[in-house]
């Protein structure tokens, strides 16, 4: 668990996606965010910068995802080179090359930080389609930096939701989630995320650099960056198979 992490844009985008639009309901805004960030597939190179008490560790990866249900990532930094993740629906496996070991991640470990980061396995596995697990309410508009935002509050309506409540700040023009707060049932703030950079890919805006902060740990943060983003690349189901994981 303490070794590296990666996951796909789908994973991390899922952890930070949602939206709103003036005069529109929260559901309509979320639908626009989903439409903006929807893709058949995505391929990218990623970099995790994990900072703990002034110490920073980085991890790099190549990743491929299809929708929000399938993802494959392989770490490329020296410490974790060859470590791979495979996500299929709610199942997640890790492959460690030195021992040729394939491990299915147990459910109780899903709240652990992936590869020592502030992003949990649960964050990574959750579908970006919030409407299935949360009810949405529009809150007064706000700004993040100089960007006007819609604010949408999500409340869990099923016990399998990763968080009891989430608040999203969504760029009114680009429909990208600029900021997010995630809360426990007790009301305690568990985690925050913020979009540090956006990138235009074709007709869409993508959060290409995001910061995640776990409020359960002191003085930690994880910055995730994506480069070489390609959308709607051709993929096959075999690329998300156990054979690909252990090849």
């Amino acid at each position: 668990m303490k070794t590296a992490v990666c996951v796909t844009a789908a994973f991390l985008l899922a952890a930070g996606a949602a939206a709103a639009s003036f005069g529109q309901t929260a559901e309509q805004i979320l639908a626009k965010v989903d439409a903006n960030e929807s893709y058949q597939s995505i391929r990218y190179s990623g970099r995790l910068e994990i900072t703990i008490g002034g110490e920073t560790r980085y991890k790099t990866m190549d990743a491929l995802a299809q929708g929000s249900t399938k993802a494959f990532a392989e770490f490329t930094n020296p410490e974790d080179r060859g470590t791979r993740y495979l996500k299929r629906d709610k199942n997640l496996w890790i492959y460690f090359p030195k021992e040729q070991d394939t491990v299915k991640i147990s459910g109780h470990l899903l709240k652990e930080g992936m590869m020592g980061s502030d992003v949990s396995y649960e964050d990574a596995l959750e579908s970006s389609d919030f409407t299935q697990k949360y009810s949405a309410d529009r809150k007064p508009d706000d700004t993040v930096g100089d960007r006007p935002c819609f604010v949408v509050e999500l409340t869990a309506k099923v016990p399998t939701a990763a968080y009891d409540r989430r608040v999203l700040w969504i760029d009114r023009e680009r429909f990208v989630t600029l900021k997010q707060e995630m809360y426990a049932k007790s009301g305690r703030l568990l985690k925050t995320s913020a979009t540090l950079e956006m990138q235009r890919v074709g007709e869409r805006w993508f959060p290409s650099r995001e910061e995640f902060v776990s409020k359960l740990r002191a003085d930690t943060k994880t910055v995730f960056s994506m480069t070489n983003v390609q959308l709607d690349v051709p993929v096959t189901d075999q690329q998300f198979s156990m054979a690909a994981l252990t090849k």
Partner: protein
Amino acid sequence: MKAFAILLAALVSAAAASGQETTAAAAPAGAEHAPWTLDGSLLVQPLAGYAGGGSWSTSNLSYGSASTLGVTLRAGSGRARAEASVEGTVLTGSSAATASAVAASPYGRADELLVPATGAGSAGQDAALAARIRTLYARLDLDGASFTAGRQVVNYSRGSLWSPTDIFTELDLAGISPVRRGTDALRLTVPLGVTAGLDAVAAPTLTPGDGRYSLRANALVGDVDAAVVAGRDGSLRGWLFGADFKTDLEVGLTGEAIYDLPDSGVAGWVRAAAGVDWSTGDFVLAAEYYYNGGGASADLLFPGTHNLYGSVTWSPSELLQLTLEVIADVRGAAGTSTLTARVSAAQNADVTAFLQAGNGSAGYGIGYGVGSASWTAQAGVGLEVKF
């Protein structure tokens, strides 16, 4: 190994040709891989130990160190790939003596080089050089199926410590944690869908009848990763039939069982392990039970019938991990306890400190299972840098 080396060269040549026809979309992984990578690690591990059975004596104290350089080269293009991993170790003091003891024990392998500085196995030996080829194989991917030839790690384990169905694994006991050695084998894997497959492995010896052969089928059934295996162990003159699984019901659950059926007509025996793991906050807990119905002939490291394992891992920070492990042979009154602290000291550099105490020969660890002292204690530090 010479035959494997020739095969490896041939397959890499084939890779270069087939790779020209392979498109990114056909590549099984998400990444575009470099044609080759070279990485490795340097591990320096000094330690001190005490082994004795009676009153305290400074003559029972020992010191040693092991400095290991490991290098792994991976090359490939398109459908074919190859890997070569070699390790060289400079051993001093008790570490050299332990390496000699391991080499002379059933865990020793003739193809691993150990050069004592003062004569093989002599008392007072204080230095040695060890070298081995951990992996050397070539792999050919054929539309999902893959064929691998050469020295490779074949890992079927599910459990935290015991894996009766992990029938090809041979362990290196010289370090803080056991490391899997490579097995000289031919392996064919054929996917059956995206989460299931067949795995045929042949690990022949110079006398093919003494080799080990198996066929394994694995699948994700619901939320259960499960497999069944049947095999032939020529060295033990018997057949093997086993099954294993991993799933979770709030807690993680693993199970493995294998039945050894000798040709001689005598009754076979069962070895089985069941484990559970659970986490709360910064703690991860694991426990496992191992039943060895075959005694020492089935498992030299854990000859006892009933064995227990427990571990608690605490991660107060992502840069620090503390683990306490206890292994016990319930009826044999043998056991090992190990406290390990692992610190991420810098990017790609870890420091591991350990304190280990044991009685009898139950347990993994440096030299456990090959020594004769009734009880031992060891402490050491390891610095590992990866590049």
